[in-house]
């Protein structure tokens, strides 16, 4: 299984990108941060000054890219119409809560029956601190955020496929982290003390390196041994009075190696996974809802796009509304903010090369399930507050504990998060069987799991109409050939979405892609 994110961008990619879009106001915003690293590629929407010249734009799809486009363009004075196929806004920024209905292609209908106030974020669920576009809108539209715990030292690693005494049972992550660091440092220090680096490192550097290793691996002062550390968690916690902590003993190195639990330690170290991380208070649909409140009647829900055609002067979008009535919207420009997996199936008047390019990307198969638990046993009985339980069954991937409703009565746990062929396999099951799979796995980690699982909602994004996939996955070849073409308009039709970014799968990609495309339209209008 490969990491779906195309990240990290290299310096080279950054410079290529700057060269590719040169001259837009967006670029200037990004440029300002160049000297300070890559934190802010685009920190704010492009300033659309100079007037809209009475022009109109029809936007297709009320996901974050479409909503961002509609919000900024209407604010700048454009006549905007936003067509959305479903009866809700948000696209994949979607939370299942009481009354939410979902019917996958070829599947049975599900109605979410979680208790009031409980939800699962079915799509995106976390906001890295450097996703400044998202945070800009959360700030300016008044969407509150709370911390998302993406790394919990006290959580478990459940690896059934390893071998040895640590396989097949939950092991606290902090034990594995401390022990493998300790042993690795000890072994390296021993090698250095035996002269292994005498030829390649100066004496001064060797001494500093040894100091680093002693520090890094919690090694004993004189003989550089790892004999455990309080950071792996004590055997018995410190208490009051005559109750000092009782030290724990490290796991044997061989047991750790054979368990393969160490494979999880770099999981959330990547740039798009690091702390600080946020989530919107109340669900991932809160930002789309906030956009929708500002846009009002600009959004026309229940309008399924049937055909997109254009002349040198106008774009015409034919739709069918929820009552089955056919109609058209005519505008000066169109922004199709629809996933390519769906857009490529729509009758669209673009060049053959453009049409072909839309098929040059694949979409991730992704499955998730939210399980409402009667009580927060992971907090009450296991002292685990948020974060992920790593599971080496690819059908499960991770079990994630909620970063909201702390110390409350109930909670909704993410019971699995799988990709690729395991997602295909799980999605072939009925909702009931998906739940059974998730509960059987969770029960191995938490003895309280099955008895507390009371309600669930599962989703397989590749089977969801109007999405048909979790996120775009570009091959290197696709990035070179199809991708640049789709970033440029075909006549009066522009595309926007996470698929037209190097932040695929993130809402930030949709937002920054929208900023880029509206910047181009505005420049053209004011040329």
């Amino acid at each position, binding site marked *: *299984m*490969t*990491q*779906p*994110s195309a990240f990290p961008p290299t310096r080279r990619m950054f410079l290529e990108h700057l060269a590719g879009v040169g001259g837009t106001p967006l670029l200037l915003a990004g440029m300002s941060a160049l000297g300070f690293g890559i934190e802010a590629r685009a920190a704010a929407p492009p300033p659309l000054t100079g007037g809209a010249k009475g022009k109109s734009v029809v936007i297709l799809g009320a996901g974050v890219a479409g909503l961002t486009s509609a919000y900024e363009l209407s604010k700048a004075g454009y006549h905007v119409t936003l067509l959305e196929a479903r009866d809700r806004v948000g696209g994949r920024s979607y939370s299942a809560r009481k009354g939410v209905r979902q019917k996958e*292609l*070829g599947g049975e209908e599900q109605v979410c029956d979680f208790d009031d106030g409980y939800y699962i974020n079915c799509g*995106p*669920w*976390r906001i890295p601190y450097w996703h400044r576009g998202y945070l800009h809108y959360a700030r300016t539209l008044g969407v509150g955020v709370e911390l998302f715990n993406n790394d919990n030292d006290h959580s478990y690693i459940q690896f059934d*496929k390893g071998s040895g005494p640590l396989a097949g049972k939950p092991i606290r992550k902090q034990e594995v982290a401390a022990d493998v660091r300790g042993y690795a440092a000890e072994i390296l220090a021993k090698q250095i003390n035996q002269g292994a680096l005498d030829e390649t490192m100066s004496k001064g550097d060797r001494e500093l390196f040894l100091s680093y290793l002693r520090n890094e691996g919690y090694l004993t002062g004189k003989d550089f041994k790892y004999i455990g550390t309080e950071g792996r968690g004590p055997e018995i916690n410190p208490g009051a009075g005559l109750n000092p902590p009782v030290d724990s003993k490290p796991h044997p190195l061989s047991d750790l190696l054979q368990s*393969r639990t160490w*494979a*999880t330690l770099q*999981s*959330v170290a990547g740039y*798009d*996974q690091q702390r600080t991380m946020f989530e919107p208070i109340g669900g991932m649909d809160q930002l789309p809802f906030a956009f929708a409140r500002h846009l009002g009647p600009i959004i026309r829900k229940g309008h399924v796009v049937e055909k997109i055609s254009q002349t040198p002067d106008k774009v015409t979008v034919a739709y069918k509304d929820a009552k089955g009535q056919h109609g058209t919207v005519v505008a000066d420009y169109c922004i199709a903010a629809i996933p390519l*997996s769906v857009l490529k*199936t729509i009758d669209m008047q673009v060049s053959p090369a453009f049409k072909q390019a839309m*098929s040059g990307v*694949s*979409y*991730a*198969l*992704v499955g998730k399930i939210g399980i409402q638990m009667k009580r927060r046993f992971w907090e009450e009985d296991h002292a685990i507050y948020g974060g*992920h339980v*790593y599971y*080496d069954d*690819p059908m499960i*991937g*991770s079990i994630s504990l909620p970063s909201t409703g702390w110390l409350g009565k109930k909670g909704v746990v993410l019971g699995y*998060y799988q*990709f*690729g*062929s*395991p*997602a*295909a*396999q799980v*999605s*072939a099951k009925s909702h009931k069987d998906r739940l059974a799979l998730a509960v059987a796995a969770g029960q191995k980690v938490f003895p309280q799991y099955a008895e507390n699982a009371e309600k669930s909602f599962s989703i*397989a994004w*590749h*089977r969801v109409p109007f999405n*048909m*996939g*979790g*996120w775009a996955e570009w091959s290197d070849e696709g990035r070179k050939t199809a991708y640049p073409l789709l970033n440029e308009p075909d006549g009066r039709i522009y595309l926007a979405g996470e698929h037209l970014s190097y932040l695929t*799968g*993130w809402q930030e990609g949709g937002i920054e892609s929208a900023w880029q495309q509206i910047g181009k339209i505005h420049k053209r209008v004011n040329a």
Partner: protein
Amino acid sequence: MTIRTTLIIGGVAASLLAGPALAQDGAALFSQSCAACHQPQGQGIPGAFPALAGDAFVQGPPQQVAHVILNGRGGMPKFSGDLTDEQIAAVATYVRGAWGNKAGPITAAAVTAERNAGALPPPTDGQQAH
């Protein structure tokens, strides 16, 4: 996740021995790994997932079919890390003979040859995504 090691047993004898069991496994594997998208009767969903019933590619050259199952294509994921060559052979054989399809079986040896030809990289250890 590791690629499971594959035992190659001599062609004719193995296929004779494995005959009925293979067909059964193929049907089960199909419903586990393929039916979510291609649908239980291989009819697909127009515009979304291609039909396998009556499809010319499915009934075409075996190595191309094996290639797509191993490597994925378009929206289809790769199964090289999840199914053994025997399993891929079983499911491909099933699909080529079900719902009116009339193509011959695909052997595990043919799948192995395709896997080796592609020098498929082993899947990496589990990672978090978005």
